[in-house]
Each structure stands twice: as structure tokens, then as C-alpha cells.
């Protein structure tokens, strides 16, 4: 999604001179055009993420619109307190962009993965997290985040969708397949694996791709669960504080207790590898998910 992100930032920056882009010394082979287009409004802040975020908070305090970019773990975990104190507690218009969320940086290893970012940031006051499904979402998501006054986090990932997959207009939770057997929710680009797994079960799977946390309008999802009585949540994120727990809380409030299955990122129990390897280890690949969906559907009969 980096290419789409860079193209979008270029457009936004040209249209709005208040946009300031800060990077923590990352963007090689991706942000050169942004740097060229923005001139002095493109700032390489160095490998100093804490300072970068506080600087961005002050720029926002003075009426500017800063975007802070790094790879997801560096953008979120290192400057966590600066995001909480300087940005969120002051409800400032700072956007944090983390590339390669989840296992996105694969063989780079655990330091370069971000499996807990949504849990952390979605718990902060005023913060909204955006997790685009696919490359085609990026322009809409970035524009939405930028046009929303207040802090936002955008988790970019690998979002190449199948050429024959059509997606409806963007919303926080989009129905990609309609069915009555099980309700299926997936967060961000891992939903593309889910789509591959679920496409052969047409009519049986009510499938929503979720791209925002907290999810403001979850009513279609709740209505679906009421019908199916079965829920599968898939996310490339740890169990705690992710989409699964978030939906469970909403369902409990509705006094709903569906059959519940959860596939999530479990961390490092079988060494390191590519993003696909980690997805396979955690049952987040299309093959494993297809088997699980089949089992859940067969238990209906």
C-alpha cells in the first residue's frame, strides 16, 4: 500500500499547504516523490520517533496538519507516550502512519512486526484506527483520516486483492459476501485471505471486512450474528484488545452468545519467516481458514 499512500499524500499536500510530512528516516524507494513535491514541508526527523511525534503535536497545535510516518512498530511503540500525552490527551490533529502492520515485515523478525498496535492505540482517548483492506482503499482511508479532526492511526499492509474481487464503496465494515450460515469478520488486509477461503461457500458466509477501530456502526454485524448464531473473527493482531474482543463486548451488551471462533496472531512459537509463513503458523492463511469455515458450516447440519 506504500505506493498508493505516497500518491495520495502527494495529492493532499498539493491541495492543502498546511500538510507537513514527517518521517523517521524511512521511505526509501517509496517517498521520494512526496519529498520532491512537498519541499520544505517534508521533514526527515531522523530515527527519533519520540521527538517526531511531539514535534508533530506542536505543529498541529499551531494549526498545521502533520503526518508522521514510519514502519508500524516504530511509529507506535517507541513514541507510545508521546502519542498518548502530547497528541491524544490534547486531541490534536496528528496522523500516525505505520507501514507493514501485523507480520508485514516478515523475515525482518519480531522487532519489525506490529501485532499489538490496534489494542494500544484504540484504547487512547480520541484516537481512531484505520486498517485499509486493499490497495484500492488507501486513497479513501487516508483522505478520511486527514479530513477527520483529531488523532488517527493508519495501519498499512500488503493489500493486493484478487483481480476478480469486487468491493463495495468504503465503510468501516463492508459486507463482501452475503450468507446465512456463519458471520465472518476480518480486520484489514488479512480479509483478503478470508475472501479466498470463503468465496466457495457462497450463500453460507456473511462476510464483513472491517477497516476501522473502534467500529462506529456495528449494527449490520450484530444483525447478522442474530441470524446466523455463529461468528468467526480473523485478525493479524493479538487476541487481547483486537477486533475479536471488541465484537464480543458488543454482543454481550446485546445479550447474544453465538458460537464463537477466533483466529489471531499468536507470536513466535515456530521461529521467524515471511508474512505468509507466520499467517500459516497462526491459521490465518486461506487454506486453514477454508477448513475452519467448512467445519463451522458442517456443524450446522
Amino acid at each position, binding site marked *: 500500500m506504500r505506493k498508493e499512500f505516497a500518491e495520495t499524500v502527494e495529492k493532499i499536500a498539493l491541495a492543502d499547504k*498546511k500538510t*507537513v510530512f514527517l518521517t523517521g528516516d524511512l521511505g526509501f524507494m517509496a517517498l521520494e516523490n512526496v519529498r520532491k513535491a512537498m519541499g520544505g514541508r517534508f521533514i526527515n526527523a531522523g530515527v527519533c520517533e*519520540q521527538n517526531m511525534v*511531539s514535534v508533530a503535536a*506542536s505543529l498541529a497545535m499551531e494549526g*498545521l496538519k502533520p503526518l508522521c510516518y514510519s514502519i508500524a512498530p516504530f511509529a507506535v511503540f517507541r513514541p507510545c*507516550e508521546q502519542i498518548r500525552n*502530547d497528541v491524544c490527551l490534547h486531541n490534536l490533529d496528528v496522523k500516525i502512519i505505520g507501514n507493514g502492520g501485523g507480520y508485514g515485515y516478515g523475515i525482518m523478525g519480531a522487532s519489525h512486526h506490529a501485532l499489538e498496535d490496534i489494542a494500544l492505540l484504540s484504547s487512547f482517548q480520541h484516537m481512531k484506527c484505520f486498517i485499509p483492506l486493499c490497495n484500492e482503499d488507501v486513497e479513501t482511508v487516508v483522505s478520511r483520516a486527514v479530513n477527520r479532526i483529531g488523532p488517527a492511526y493508519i495501519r498499512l499492509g500488503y493489500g493486493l486483492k484478487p483481480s476478480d474481487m469486487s468491493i463495495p464503496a468504503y465503510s468501516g465494515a463492508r459486507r463482501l459476501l452475503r450468507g446465512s450460515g456463519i458471520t465472518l469478520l476480518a480486520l484489514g488486509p488479512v480479509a483478503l485471505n478470508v475472501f479466498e477461503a470463503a468465496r466457495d461457500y457462497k450463500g453460507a458466509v456473511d462476510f464483513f471486512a472491517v477497516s476501522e477501530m473502534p467500529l462506529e456502526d456495528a449494527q449490520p454485524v450484530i444483525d447478522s450474528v442474530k441470524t446466523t448464531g455463529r461468528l468467526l473473527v480473523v485478525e493479524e493482531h493479538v487476541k487481547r484488545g483486537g477486533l475479536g474482543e471488541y465484537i464480543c463486548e458488543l454482543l454481550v451488551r446485546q445479550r447474544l452468545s453465538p458460537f464463537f471462533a477466533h483466529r489471531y496472531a499468536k507470536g513466535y512459537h515456530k521461529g521467524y519467516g515471511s508474512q505468509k509463513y507466520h499467517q500459516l503458523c497462526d491459521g490465518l492463511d486461506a487454506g486453514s481458514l477454508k477448513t475452519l469455515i467448512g467445519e463451522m458450516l458442517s456443524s450446522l447440519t
Partner: protein
Amino acid sequence: MMNANPGKDWRGLETVRKDAILKMLRMYRDANAGHIGASLSCMEILLYLHFSRMTPDDKFILSKGHAAAALYCVLNQRGKLSDEALASFYRDGTSLAAHPPCDKSADGIIFGTGSLGHGLSLSAGLYLSRKFTGRHFNAYTVLSEGDCNEGSTWEAALFAAQHDMSGLFAIVDNNGLQGFGKSREVLNLEPLEKKWAAFNFDVEIASDGHDFRCLDAAFAALAARGGRRPKCLIAKTIKGHGLSFMENRLESHYLPLSGEQYKTAVKEIEESYAQRIR
């Protein structure tokens, strides 16, 4: 509420100082609160900046947010914070907690602080914004030695120098004590002057950070340097300054005033005022 503006009328500023400290001591007594030593350590620095140094457009960040009571009283003397607001210090529902608020409720407090190591970055960001907004101001930050323990402060120092922030002033309240020990024994910052200079700051030392003339001379020397470097003033101070039972004592960071101590404190501040204006 006073609205004095003594400029370089040091005698007038001494009166403001006495009033501010007496109000602050009463606030601390009423709240049964600590951090008194840290506030007394930087009171004169804050007064000097707000009454004699900064223009209305200049920006100020109290990085050592635990000295908030001193800032509140200085802003009160400056006419920016009411007596009613001061009376709410530490009370449930107040904006004036032990550390500066994030709710923009106080004129003169741009950012809430309290966790050390944020102030210099916030100042650097404010200063950087000039480049895009065309506004003109200087940015002042008061830091503790605890602030100088934090890596983020040195990230900010690198950034400020990289971006030629000649109007950014870092003022280090150099009292030699921090949260749980003497600074030299906890995490030795010396040679502090050389450290800031090595980070490409112009550095001056105020040998008595409680003396307005000394502070003024040090700032004048910094301003005379010109050039593109950011500025650092290391103010030699005394934690708990002005109170015989608090000066240079670690416990002045935490402990509140007893009734007897309060009476002694008021007496000592009034006596010192008489000496300071002599």
C-alpha cells in the same frame, strides 16, 4: 490578582516574587501537597521569563511539569490565572492538578506536561511551525535534570540544532537533586555545559539562578551570540530555595508542609524579601 509588568525593574519583580511564593506556599499547605522544592528551585526563572524576557507572542513549555504550582502562581501574578482558579489547586474537578493541564484551560499553558522528556520536543515543534505559518516568536522551555536523563530530550536537542532554531531556549534548572538521589550519583550529567555545546547549542551558565540580574546577564550573553544555534542556559539553583529546612534536601521533592513549617516558611520568605530589596 496582580497584573504587574516590571520589565527590568528588579525591585518590583522582587515584590512579585514574594507574593507569588507566599501564594504558592499557601496553596501547597491547603492541598497538603509535595513538589515544593522543585517549584522553589525554578520560581525565579519562571518569573524572569514571564515578566522580563518573553513577549506576548513567545511560547513557553514547563517540561518539569511537577513544578506546576510555581507556574500557576506566576501566571496568576501575570493576570492570566484567577485567584479562584488557584484556590481549586489539587481539588476534585480542578484543571490545576499537580502537573499542568492538557485542556487548554489556562492562558499561558500550551501543553500539559508531567512525564519528563517531552518539553524540548514540544518547543522544537512550536518553533518549527514558524517556518510554515510565518509567525515570529521565540520558544522557551524549563527542564529539570530528570528531563536531561530522558533520551527524548537529546533527540529534541539534535533536532533543534539540525533545524537552526536560534530562538529556541532550553533552560536547565540545575539544582543537583532529582527524584531519588543526587544527580551525580543517580545518572551523572556532567559535564553538562559541554554536553549541550556538543549538541550544537550555544551555552551560558547563570551562576545564581535565583538572582534576576544574573539570569538577565546570562540571557543577554546568549542573545549576543547571534548565529543559528539553539540556546541553552544552565541555571545553577537550589532545590527548596529560600526555606532553611528544605534547601538541598531530597525530601523537599515529595513532602508537604506541616503547620509549623508553613509558619516558618512565611517568616523566612518575608525576611529574605527585605534582604533582597535592600
